[in-house]
């Protein structure tokens, strides 16, 4: 769900362009891992992944029902003496929709498409006692919530398929210091990397209703100079069974908002003009997690204070709980229940801002909205049938305006330690001008095969 939830952000942003007792004793058992040399002995490991998505309907912009993707990922890691380590994760990928095109190596990555070959992560780490410095193309994960982490702002996402999104690494330097109860991490990201948004001909780019005509510019990205540097810090402590964090981010939102203006095409003919731009903001935040018996309770909240290219200062928060029930039955080992509530409110409206309110554009409704957690309830029920088989039912209800919903059923099974299979269904309901309803034609079945080595 978290992937799908994160996806929310992306969306239609660029919609407008076109809109037994006798068992053997220990010593008698063979050691499986003794069978020959392995790639892992050389520091290599990886995975091969095949994904297939079958959509039940066509959309005005996309009639390709089945989309297949392939990914081959290879990781090489090596310790550099007692002081450090190097890790490189490279990948090769392709698909039959057009997500992947060309061979490009960019710092930062700004291509609309994925590259056939790419570097997902590169990290050089040096540590001495409680201190550690890492540099390279890194992925960070902050926050305590399940569905959505408002404090986790450093990495952009690949939203080409918003419901199967993934984090993109950012070239960055991070310094960490840790004691048993307190840790501090400070991060600097010198380049701005935007999130990768759905392609124009994709079913994930919402269809704009007839009657809405506008000129949409190419996105205006921040200049790659010193002013584009982004900073973040997180101070975390554990006190009396509570994990408490304070965080701060000074940087860009990775998905664009629209600056509204007009353009005169001819005398007396004026059209709305939408220019995608990126909000610079300061984001102080906090999160917590603790347990009460069988319940894990968590929450996180931020204030998103606009520096430039923003319409409103906003509060975003999410809180919830996890409950684990150990069943211990032969056919049902464990149940996990997760419930969260997310809320966004406007703290201050910037009066003279020319940025559109993407939640309520006339004629368009919430089709261009980029946040599913304005007023949302999130739920997940997970049944662990065995160590190898898990069933999961996840849902998000967007209650801001007319209700809309996202529901996912997913089954995962470990065929062997190396081969995993995953299959499920995505359902989206709601009116076409609601957050989830805009993708009402995108219900689908998916299957993922993953081979790890």
């Amino acid at each position, binding site marked *: 769900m*978290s992937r799908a939830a994160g996806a929310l952000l992306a969306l239609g942003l660029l919609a407008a362009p076109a809109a*037994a007792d006798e*068992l*053997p004793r*220990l010593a008698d*058992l*063979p*050691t*499986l*891992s003794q069978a020959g040399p392995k790639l*892992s002995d050389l520091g290599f*490991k990886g995975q091969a992944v095949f994904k297939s998505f079958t959509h039940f309907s066509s959309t005005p912009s996309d009639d390709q029902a089945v989309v297949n993707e392939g990914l081959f990922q290879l990781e090489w890691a090596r310790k550099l003496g007692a002081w450090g380590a190097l890790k490189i994760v490279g990948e090769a990928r392709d698909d039959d929709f057009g997500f992947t095109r060309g061979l490009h190596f960019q710092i930062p990555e700004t291509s609309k498409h994925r590259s056939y070959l790419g570097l997902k992560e590169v990290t050089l*780490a040096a*540590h001495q*006692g*409680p201190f*550690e410095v890492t540099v390279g193309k890194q*992925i*960070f*994960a902050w*926050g*305590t919530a399940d569905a959505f982490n408002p404090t986790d702002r450093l990495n952009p996402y690949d939203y080409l398929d918003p419901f199967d999104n993934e984090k993109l690494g950012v070239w960055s330097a991070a310094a*960490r210091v*840790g*004691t*048993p*109860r307190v*840790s501090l*991490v400070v991060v600097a990201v010198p380049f701005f990397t935007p999130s990768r948004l759905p392609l124009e001909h994709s079913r994930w780019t919402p269809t704009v209703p007839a009657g809405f005509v506008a000129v949409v510019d190419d996105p205006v990205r921040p200049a790659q100079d010193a002013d584009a540097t982004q900073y973040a810090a997180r101070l*975390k402590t*554990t006190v009396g*069974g509570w*994990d408490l964090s304070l965080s701060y981010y000074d940087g860009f939102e990775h998905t664009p908002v629209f600056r509204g203006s007009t353009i005169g095409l001819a005398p007396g003919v004026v059209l709305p003009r939408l220019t995608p731009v990126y909000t610079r903001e300061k984001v102080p935040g906090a999160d917590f*997690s*603790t*347990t009460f*018996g*069988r*319940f*894990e309770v*968590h929450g996180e909240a931020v204030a998103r204070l606009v520096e430039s290219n923003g319409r409103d200062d906003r509060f975003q928060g999410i809180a919830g709980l*996890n*409950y*684990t029930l*150990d069943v*211990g039955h*032969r056919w049902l*080992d*464990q149940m996990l229940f997760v419930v969260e509530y997310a809320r966004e409110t406007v703290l201050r409206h910037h009066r003279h801002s020319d940025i559109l309110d993407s939640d309520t554009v006339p004629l368009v409704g919430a089709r261009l909205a980029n946040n599913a957690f304005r007023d949302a309830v999130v739920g997940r029920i997970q049944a662990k049938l065995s*160590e*190898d088989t898990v069933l999961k039912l996840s849902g998000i209800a967007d209650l801001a305006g007319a209700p809309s919903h996202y529901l996912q059923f997913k089954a995962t099974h*470990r065929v062997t*330690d*190396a081969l*995993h299979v995953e299959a499920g269904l995505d359902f989206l309901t709601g009116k076409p001008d609601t957050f989830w309803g805009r993708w009402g034609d995108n219900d689908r079945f998916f299957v993922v095969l993953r081979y*790890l*080595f």
Partner: protein
Amino acid sequence: MSPRVAVALLAMVLLVPAVAIPAAAQSGLEIMKRQREVQHVRDEEERQLLRLVSKSGATKERRVTRWVLSGPGDLDKILVRFQAPRDVENTALLTWEAKDGNDDQWLYLPSVKKAKRIAASGKKNRFMGTDFAYEDLRSEPLAVHIYALLGAETLDGADCWIIDAKPATERQAADSGYSHRKIWIRKDHYVTVKREFYDRQDRLEKVETHRKLVNVTGTIWRSDELEMHDVQNGTRTLVTIESRAINRGLRDDFFSEPELIR
């Protein structure tokens, strides 16, 4: 009597009480406390090969490294990290034991690059597909159990005490998956060689057997092989200690979130 023999006898007289107190002189709790004293180390690292054997005899392997640091009040900090197989590699569990049994626990999942606090209610849940529950892997929580000395028995030629351990508090009874456990402790070395686990209906659920006892140093004994047999399900988990190091000066900050996610 030669001087050499006299010295030897004197040494026996002086030393024997220190390690082999007569059973009648000790209660179950005293034996457990004495065991903790005798087997106590400041820190310990073990590389373990776990073989999970199904009822049909099919075998899966797991490799883990387990670090333990003793803290004030004999409360341990424990970090367990998987090395294999590939799909759980680098998954790690950090536990800070609490006196009331309400431990702090964090699980690191490499796929999301995040350490999450987890509720201690999962104690009775099986650990990563093994026959060990989380509560089987923590050190013996003396404060929340009642220990009764049931008697003595010879096991594999060694005299052992048999001690029955029952939850002492309602909270512990609710959190634990067991109504009680029987523990066999060798009288000579104060080392546990067998445990029986009884479910909430008082039926025998699991039997843990320790083999290949080795004297690590001084009074410290450990088993190099361990088997947990789930007699109800017919599964077994066999543990082989591939390497062990004790008292190498592990730092407290090793048992922290930054290390967990490293």
